[in-house]
């Protein structure tokens, strides 16, 4: 591979947004048949580099060379035509079209002057089945499926294009281990076929498993290019963060459990169900307890969480809060009962794109206070500044529009939105999705310390490791049914949970 010439060379790339210098003199060399990781903290400029490459943004300075030819791409369409296929960080598909259409649109199969739906549906189904082991009805609208499935479909779409360069921007952020393995098999195959692949992820394990080489960015600057097997984890992290990070090593596994003593129940759910969504289940959450929800893709974790929050209305069941009956028919009621819910789908259910960081942060709090108790602007800025610092949000400007933030930073703002309301129960659906290593550790620490102060947390995550580390109790879902509940003591291992998820334990 050494003697090969790079397929793609980006040099001296500089990109400035009004007020933010997103990229300064960045370079990237991509060889055919390699998987190349882009590494960096949230807001380091990974997605921007990708968007510059695929023509979503134009760059201010620098040059791009593909196959020895200098190019300047001005639109995603052009990028595709040049053989660059991309899965962007946020799922960018059309929810009003069917799965098959989403896979084929732009490159439809035409037979006798008309689109051949039969063939496209067939091929789409096959593609999802064979490549990603996903057996779903491809004639259903995309909106029918959860974000994770949508992400798989986006990946399938990019695979369907015969390309020279494949770019995957955090494709694994909401996938569970099985799906990740599936994806990696595909990547390995493509690699053998000589494709050059750019891969972005905040999971170091995945980086070390699949990538050959990596480029590290920090604050929009190029830090260096390394061979993956030649750089230590710790060194990599310190390159990304810019300082020695010994704290991260501390690995205080399950410390919380010892500190936690059973107090009194905060929420008691009995026989809650919604037809077609989730079978009747009971759920108790103690004050100050962190409860994990584990399950495979589409097992119904999100649905369960939404019912507890009143985002969907339950058909049956009753919920007691602090011992007395509560009516959680709408998010508003749930919030006034001290429940908060951070959705897994930040683009459509989380951010209010046109508003600023400050406004996004105080929204839930203001909703709680009502129309007339308006939080004075000065106070708003104080709050925003406080949480920007606490969660290390970049850029640290409360007046920046949230849609201009990097994915991970958006997630932090949403987390702040809920922390500000000072909830009794915080429901987090994949909260660490797209968040970098440092921040992830910070958030876990925060969860633990909040639980010590008496806040309960319902924690949905596809990373069993993470769940095991933080939760005292773990509920497992399978096929829209709560099948198991573990007390998290030292005996429980990742394997046990996986077994329960897959159905080996009932």
């Amino acid at each position, binding site marked *: 591979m050494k003697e090969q010439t790079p397929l793609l060379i980006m040099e001296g790339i500089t990109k400035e947004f009004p007020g933010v210098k997103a990229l300064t003199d960045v370079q990237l060399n991509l060889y055919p048949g390699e998987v190349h990781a882009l590494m960096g903290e949230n807001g380091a400029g990974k997605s921007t580099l990708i968007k510059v490459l695929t023509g*979503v943004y134009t760059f201010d300075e620098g040059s791009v060379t593909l196959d020895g030819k200098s190019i300047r791409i001005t*639109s*995603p*369409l052009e*990028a*595709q*035509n040049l053989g660059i296929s*991309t899965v*962007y960080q946020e799922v*960018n*598909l*059309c*929810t*009003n*079209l069917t799965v098959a*259409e989403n896979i084929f*649109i*732009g490159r*439809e199969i*035409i037979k006798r002057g*008309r*689109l051949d739906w039969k063939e496209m549906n067939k091929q789409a189904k096959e593609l999802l089945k064979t490549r990603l082991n996903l057996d779903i*009805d491809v*004639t*259903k*609208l995309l909106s029918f499926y959860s974000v994770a499935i949508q992400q798989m479909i986006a990946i399938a*779409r990019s695979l369907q294009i015969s390309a020279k360069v494949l770019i995957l921007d955090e494709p694994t952020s909401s996938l569970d281990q099985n799906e990740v393995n599936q994806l990696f098999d595909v990547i390995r195959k493509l690699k053998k076929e000589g494709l050059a692949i750019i891969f972005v992820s905040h999971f170091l394990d995945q980086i070390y498993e699949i990538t050959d080489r990596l480029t590290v960015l920090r604050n929009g600057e190029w830090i260096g290019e390394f061979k993956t097997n030649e750089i230590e984890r710790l060194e990599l992290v310190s390159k990304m963060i810019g300082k020695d990070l010994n704290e991260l090593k501390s690995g205080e596994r399950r410390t919380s459990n010892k500190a936690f003593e059973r107090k009194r129940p905060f929420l008691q759910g009995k026989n809650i169900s*919604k*037809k*077609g*969504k989730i079978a009747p289940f009971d759920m108790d959450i103690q004050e100050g307890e962190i409860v994990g929800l584990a399950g495979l893709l589409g097992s119904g974790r999100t649905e369960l969480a939404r019912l507890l929050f009143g985002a969907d209305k339950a058909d049956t069941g009753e919920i007691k809060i602090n011992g007395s009956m509560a009516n959680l028919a709408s998010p508003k009621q749930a919030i006034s009962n001290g429940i908060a819910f951070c959705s897994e789908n930040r683009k459509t259910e989380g951010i209010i794109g046109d508003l600023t960081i400050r406004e996004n942060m105080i929204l839930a709090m203001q909703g709680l206070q009502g129309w007339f108790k308006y939080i004075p602007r000065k106070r708003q800025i104080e709050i925003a500044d406080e949480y920007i610092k606490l969660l290390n949000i970049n850029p640290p400007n409360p007046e920046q529009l949230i849609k201009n933030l990097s994915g991970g930073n958006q997630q932090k703002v949403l987390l702040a939105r809920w922390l500000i309301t000072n909830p009794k129960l915080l429901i987090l659906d994949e909260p660490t999705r797209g968040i970098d290593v440092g921040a992830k550790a910070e958030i876990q620490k925060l969860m633990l310390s909040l639980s010590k102060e008496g806040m309960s947390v319902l924690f949905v995550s596809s990373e069993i490791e993470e769940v095991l580390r933080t939760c005292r109790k773990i509920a497992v879902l399978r096929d829209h049914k709560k099948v198991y509940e573990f007390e998290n003591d030292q005996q429980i291992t990742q394997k046990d949970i996986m077994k329960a998820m897959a159905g080996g334990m009932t």
Partner: protein
Amino acid sequence: MTKGFQLDSKHLPLAATIGLFIVMFLFGSLRYTGFFSTQVFLNLFIDNAFLIVVAVGMTFVILSGGIDLSVGSIIALTSMVAASLTMNAQLSPALVIPLSLLVGTVLGFSMGCLIHYFNLQPFIVTLAGMFLARGLCYLINVESITINNEFFSFMASTRIPVGGGNFISISVIIALLVVVAAIFVAHFTKFGRNVYALGGSEQSALLMGLPVGKTKILIYTVSGFCSSLAGLIFTFYMLSGYGLHANGLELDTIAAVVIGGTLLTGGAGYVAGSVVGVLILGIIQTVIVFEGTLSSWWTKIAIGGLLLLFIVLQRVIVARSKTTQTSIASH
């Protein structure tokens, strides 16, 4: 998760609309003598042929998440151009017709370009287009121009018998051809699917590498063309060109499209639905004329009331079955 169910859930608004139309027709037939006849039904098509054609064009615009307010004015301008070319310039219809069709096509194309290249809001651009087209009518002539031309008279008065003494006009045939073509375009061509994608999410469409700009420009061109074609049908219908023709028609058209089940936010809806929407507006008027006792203001109130009835019933039916639908479908 059977196929049948899924088909239903997608086509439900359309089915509800057709059902409501039938109910309305039955209501009219029971209440008024002479209502239950094939000709009354066919008259809906004869009298609304032009509206069907504009609604088809508008459907594409609305499906893409845009809006076109210029359609009424373009109809007027087309009729004016056709009339003045025929009567004042004495050109033959073989020339007049393509030239008139060009009017809306060019205007639509220009509006599409403004919307795409300068990122302007469709509402405003087409509103300007609406003012402009009507203004141009008056520049040609403030008075109406009568058309005395054999070809036009032929198109206007030819009756195509469909049996039982009933007839339709040539315009109906044109309109139905347009509908068939549009359904094909919407579902079996790349352009059609791009329109839906654009309406679903413009940003996603862009990132998926779809030709967003080209599609947008084409959409407004198509709508402009449809308006001009409707303008010609309207000219056959009226045998005159006039600056006040089709005043306020844009709202009727939008209403028809939306009643036909297309979402104004884009991305969901059917061409066939818009046709039913037009027929519903038509039948409301027919019922009111048959009633024949409403004063001018009660006419307006009655139109509003019937519109309300339709929309609310449609909402209720769709909302009702959606809740039962999803729970059944996912098991």
